[in-house]
């Protein structure tokens, strides 16, 4: 533990946190929902940068991909279903929320007094379980990224729950808004979109440059998702981030080339089946370990009969289990995200250039 505080890091932290504060105030004060959605994206990017400054690179990665990427697009889709501006509240109606915020803020500030110092080696998270994970991962799991080992192996059951939550979110949105394919494929809207695509870059086409650049970038984005997926054991990343990045590739395609073209490439039925398949792969690995005679999601049993004996240095089983489980997360997350996007896009009226 070093007593000397790095002044540069402190300054960066202060700058980022004050920018977060300003953005939060702006979000609370604004009435235009479009500006608010954009500012929440800015807020997510700033918090991602702050997480990097705190050395929580995996969290920063997720925040940048989910908070700034997908959720901005989904909130824009939700905004299109409602109004563009928020109604101004009555002056007396603002007192209640203000009181709640003030009391909660005061309690949170009071709670920070009991928090351990940042990076304190004697604090609770850094002494018992955390230190055990750091010490054992290399011998027991054999992957360099401890975050991946904790997420997919030590706490694999929790991650199964999280994957289920993402899948359930997709399911809930689809149950409320529909899967989007019927309203898109049956209506004249799809026909109009196809017609516009066939005409190609013409005189009235304002989107040639965006289209060309996206055409170059979308394969690279998909490839990057696979890199994040299969490099997650070595470096920051993993199934959640990769799934979101893969979904972003599909969403970008449909934003630039039109929903109907995206539905031709990745149909809504395919997206929801992929989501279900991902959750089934994750749970299936758990049942496979049960059949092999171990506990639920006990990866040591996976390759135990091929030489390595149970509960020793059989890290191959761990590697296989983590890889399969991460593939399940990838499929569940990307399928759910695309399903949610299609659900919103299927309800939203077509966005014309003039509307923006």
């Amino acid at each position, binding site marked *: 533990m070093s007593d000397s505080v790095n002044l540069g890091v402190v300054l960066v932290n202060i700058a980022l946190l004050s920018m977060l504060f300003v953005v939060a105030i702006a979000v609370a004060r604004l009435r235009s929902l479009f500006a608010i959605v954009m500012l929440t994206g800015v807020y997510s990017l700033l918090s991602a940068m702050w997480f990097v400054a705190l050395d929580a690179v995996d969290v920063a990665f997720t925040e940048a991909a989910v908070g700034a990427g997908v959720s901005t697009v989904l909130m824009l889709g939700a905004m299109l279903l409602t109004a563009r501006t928020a109604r101004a509240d009555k002056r007396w109606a603002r007192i209640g929320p203000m009181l709640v915020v003030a009391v909660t803020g005061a309690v949170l500030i009071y709670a920070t007094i009991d928090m351990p110092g940042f990076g304190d080696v004697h604090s609770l998270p850094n002494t018992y379980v955390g230190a055990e994970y750091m010490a054992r991962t290399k011998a027991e799991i054999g992957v360099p990224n401890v975050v991946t080992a904790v997420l997919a192996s030590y706490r694999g059951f929790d991650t199964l729950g999280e994957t289920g939550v993402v899948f359930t979110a997709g399911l809930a949105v689809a149950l409320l808004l529909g899967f989007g394919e019927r309203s898109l494929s049956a209506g004249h809207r799809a026909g109009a979109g196809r017609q516009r695509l066939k005409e190609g870059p013409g005189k009235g086409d*304002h*989107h040639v*440059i*965006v289209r060309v*650049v996206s055409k*170059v*970038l979308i394969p690279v984005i998909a490839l990057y998702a696979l890199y994040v997926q299969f490099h997650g054991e070595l470096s920051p990343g993993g199934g959640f981030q990769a799934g979101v990045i893969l979904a972003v590739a599909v969403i970008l395609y449909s934003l630039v080339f039109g929903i109907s073209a995206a539905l031709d490439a990745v149909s809504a039925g395919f997206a929801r089946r992929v989501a279900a398949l991902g959750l089934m792969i994750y749970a299936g690995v758990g049942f496979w370990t049960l059949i092999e005679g171990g506990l639920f999601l006990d990866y040591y049993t996976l390759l135990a009969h091929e030489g390595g004996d149970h509960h020793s240095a059989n890290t191959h089983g761990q590697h296989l289990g983590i890889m399969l489980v991460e593939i399940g997360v990838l499929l569940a997350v990307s399928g759910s995200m695309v399903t949610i996007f299609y659900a919103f896009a299927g309800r939203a009226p077509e966005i014309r*250039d*003039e509307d*923006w």
Partner: protein
Amino acid sequence: MIEDLLAWFGQAYGFIHAPLGQGLILTGALLTIVGAVGVLRFPDFYTRLHAASVTDTAGATLMLVGMALISPTGWVALKLLFIWLFLFLTSPASSHALANAAYTAGMEPRTGPGAGHGPGGVS
């Protein structure tokens, strides 16, 4: 003869790469500040966009080149090259998309004498 020249270049690089890289990073940071001032001070949307894209292209490029010069290994420099390539493709495209959307929405650029004075916006 050629080997001597190469060795001389290597030595010269060893001397110059760190100060050169730091200077480029500082220049890039300066351009970023200039871009931020421009976004705040310029009169209408299109000129502000111009100032913002100076930050995106020139500032980011100079900083990335500077970081590549002081990077410890070639792999880091290669990754920086990929980041630069990504920015090189995306930031002009996004600037173009913004300007295009503003023009399509009917926002006229301020023109003529005296266009540089007073608060601007949609005319």
